[in-house]
């Protein structure tokens, strides 16, 4: 057998965890969580590239250059003007929570938007995404800096969305915890912006949906061109609760996302709808997981990818139905549209069905634009570029049409803007 070339073991300094925790005003319980995560990382072992999650992207890509626990607070960029109806808003940037606005109704209903460092919720952190989830999640857990807690009490319905804006700096490790109380109903949109050449982001978001809650969570990534980033966003969905996860990926040079939900209680339902648009030399690697742990749970996933230039996309979609999850249903569909001969996409469904009494289906396609569609639109006067735009917009809009209104309109506008610059 040929011997592999020796690869130097990667180094990851995490020397300032305690100082970071102290400076942020955290309690001892939170520091203990950080220290345990740090212990998982020494020595640092990167995941085996043969493992499916890392088959398409090298784990070393996301390693910070320096000690992530030593990152200095940075600039947040221009002020954020809130010109829409929101229940609450928060801006995370430069390693801290900079703006918090809570509407009067939301405040009266007991909605909490708080600095996660000082929120005293160490017991709730890591329940959905534990440090052992993966090495990047462990790095985030040990060294996250700038975090927000969103808590909507039981029974509260919010008319307007909660918007979180996360502005990436040179190195960002944001952390978001969303707690949806029993029977609550609301929409929360996490928008990622900023960055710049070679900026790195390792973010983790946890969403806890208590029984009968209805949470619409949207993750919108539109970093500047050079960003290399990894975002993990996972939900845990209790009995009778409904979670809708929306995903929209536009920016960055290299983006890997891990989005999913555990359907933990009987009758839980999850829908994940997403679009990704890549161009130039962008690299996308999206992984989704729907884990059915309880009986009579349903999940549905529809993810669309459109690529121009020499963009690359890999999608892996896991559906796991545990032995106890009888009577469950799971559907997954991933379609990829290639607008250039140099773009490439792969789509790999992964099913682990461990009980007989289920209904499950999946579909995947990778294809160029249908020339007959182009001819049809051309015969109606649309020039080739415009015809392609109409087709791509329609391709993505079928999925976007299923999102809640505010998120949908926002993403539709981003898609339209992106199509006009292609």
């Amino acid at each position, binding site marked *: 057998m040929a011997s592999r070339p020796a690869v130097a073991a990667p180094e990851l300094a995490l020397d300032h965890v305690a100082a970071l925790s102290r400076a942020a005003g955290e309690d001892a319980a939170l520091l203990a969580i950080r220290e345990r995560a740090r212990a998982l990382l020494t020595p640092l072992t990167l995941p085996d590239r043969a493992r499916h999650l890392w088959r398409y992207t090298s784990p070393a890509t996301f390693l910070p250059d320096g000690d992530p626990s030593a990152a200095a607070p940075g600039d947040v960029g221009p002020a954020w003007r809130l010109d829409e109806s929101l229940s609450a808003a928060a801006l995370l940037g430069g390693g801290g929570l900079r703006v918090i606005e809570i509407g009067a109704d939301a405040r009266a209903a007991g909605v909490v938007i708080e600095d996660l460092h000082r929120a005293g919720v160490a017991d709730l952190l890591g329940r959905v995404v534990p440090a052992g989830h993966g090495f990047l999640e462990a790095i985030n857990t040990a060294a996250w800096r700038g975090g927000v807690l969103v808590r909507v009490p039981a029974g509260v319905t919010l008319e307007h969305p909660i918007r979180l804006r996360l502005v990436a700096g040179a190195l960002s490790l944001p952390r978001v915890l969303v707690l949806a109380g029993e029977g609550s109903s609301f929409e929360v949109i996490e928008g990622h912006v900023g960055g710049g050449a070679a900026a790195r982001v390792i973010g983790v978001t946890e969403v806890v949906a208590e029984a009968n809650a209805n949470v619409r969570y949207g993750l919108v990534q539109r970093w500047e061109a050079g960003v290399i980033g990894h975002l993990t966003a996972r939900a845990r969905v209790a009995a009778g609760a409904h979670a809708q996860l929306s995903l929209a990926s536009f920016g960055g040079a290299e983006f890997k996302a891990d989005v999913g939900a555990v359907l933990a209680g009987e009758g839980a339902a999850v829908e994940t709808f997403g679009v990704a648009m890549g161009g130039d030399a962008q690299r996308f690697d999206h992984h989704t997981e729907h884990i059915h742990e309880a009986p009579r749970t349903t999940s549905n996933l529809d993810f669309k990818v459109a690529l121009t230039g020499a963009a690359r996309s890999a999608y892996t979609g896991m559906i796991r139905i545990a032995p106890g999850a009888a009577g469950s249903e799971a559907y997954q569909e991933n379609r990829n549209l290639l607008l250039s001969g140099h773009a490439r996409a792969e789509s790999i469904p992964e099913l682990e069905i461990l009980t007989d009494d289920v209904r499950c289906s999946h579909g995947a396609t990778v294809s160029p634009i249908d*020339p007959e569609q182009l*001819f*049809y639109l051309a015969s109606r*006067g649309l020039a*080739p570029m415009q015809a392609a735009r109409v087709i791509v917009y329609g391709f993505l809009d079928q999925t976007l049409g299923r999102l809640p209104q505010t998120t949908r309109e926002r993403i539709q506008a981003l898609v339209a803007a992106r199509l006009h610059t292609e």
Partner: protein
Amino acid sequence: MNENARPVFSCNGVHVRIGEKEVVKGVDLAVLPGEVHAIMGPNGSGKSTLANSLMGHPAYALTGTVELGGEDVTALPPDEKARRGMFLAFQYPVAVPGVTVASFLRAAVSAVRGADVPVREFRKELLARMEDLEMDPGFAGRYLNDGFSGGEKKRVEILQLLMLKPRFALLDETDSGLDIDALKVVAKGINAAASNDTGMLLVTHYQRLLNYVHPHVVHVFMDGRIVRSGGPELALELEERGYDWLEPAAVGGV
């Protein structure tokens, strides 16, 4: 119709190849404004190939000349032909999922008229034309041809004809697969376009349509050629006798 009118559409010496195979073998046509020509011919004789290639389908290699309003448009791509007033109603319209009939038509109307049509004005016009065609207004919000029945697709092709108001339209079997009510509606649309001076070439298999649309000229098309042209009586004759008596060999190597 003016006897001295110049053709709105003409083609001369049109041959079409698909790969190595010649499918259209020399076609000459001249259509005056408001004039309706019917083309009838057996399956596989090349009617759709002729219609698609006249519109500029990139998969077909066309030689000869195609003129629109006296201008040579032979080498123009389909979108430019459309913007100059040419239209093709497809035998098999493709679905464009995610794009609504209304948004698609607004883009098409804006492209063809060369200016954005204000939304309200456009909607009003669209709803009026849909009413003319006895279509449920809900169709405006449906994805173009996605899950439409055969008859619904044909109606939407005629809706586009009425909205885009071309100078010349090729209609490829727009009457196929229609029930009698739908056939009357489609015929009404064709007659409305003709009375607006649109010249038309209808590909059809059925005399039935010609009960409602009165063509000025009927052409019999076999094996890539027009083997006979005549008045509406030719369609009746075909209905009675079929195509056998018109085998290309029998007409002496036309």
